[in-house]
């Protein structure tokens, strides 16, 4: 199950989606907007996406994970738009008969989502300034 949403994410529901009597182990990853980065305070994030491609990429990642690991269920929900500090930006749930598979697949999914799915966050700091987060780009250059 793949979803991009502008509404509040309920992580318990994302977990519930993958739970099954056939899966002894479920792992849920939840990414939350963090208040402090080094000594700077974040007020909110804003997520933008190339929605059509993001859905295609997330479906590919689910399919790849299901080929690499024996998974019973996979659910990925990513929030778009404004996300306040402490709110959930992404929830990923996987279930499996085997807990090692569930942990590995969950970690691989979040690591890979951060690398290839066309979603971007713009950070608004407590001093009112804001900037896009583009990993690997030196802001002095751009």
């Amino acid at each position, binding site marked *: 199950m793949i979803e991009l949403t502008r509404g509040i994410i309920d992580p318990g529901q994302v977990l519930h989606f993958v739970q099954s009597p056939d899966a002894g182990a479920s792992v849920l990853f939840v*990414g939350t907007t963090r208040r402090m980065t080094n000594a700077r305070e974040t007020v909110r994030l804003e*997520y*933008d*996406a*190339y929605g*059509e*491609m*993001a859905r*295609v*990429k997330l479906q590919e990642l689910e399919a790849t994970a299901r080929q690499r690991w024996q998974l019973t269920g996979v659910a990925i929900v*990513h929030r778009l738009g404004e996300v306040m500090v402490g709110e959930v*930006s*992404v929830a990923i749930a996987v279930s499996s008969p085997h807990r090692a598979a569930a942990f590995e697949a969950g970690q691989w999914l*979040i690591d890979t*989502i*951060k*690398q*290839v*799915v*066309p*979603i*971007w*966050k*713009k950070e608004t700091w407590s001093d009112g300034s804001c900037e*896009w*987060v*583009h*990993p*690997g*780009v030196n802001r002095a*250059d*751009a």
Partner: protein
Amino acid sequence: MILSIRLFAAAHEAVGEDVVSLPLEDGATVAQLRHALVEQFPSLAAWEHHLLIAVNQQYVLETHELAPDDEVACFPPVSGG
């Protein structure tokens, strides 16, 4: 051919438009598209080597040849999650 190119995140902001049109020779490659984009929109120059180009919602090689009906998008490194 004239291609429509969707821009996202800082690329969108740098250009001020979410879609731009770009004249390209038939059979132009992604590398040629990247070059032409930066020439027409100098505000993208600082991003040039970081810009990702997606064709029909897939990442492609720099040597990939573009077709008139392709859905083309251009954006900086992703930061979801």
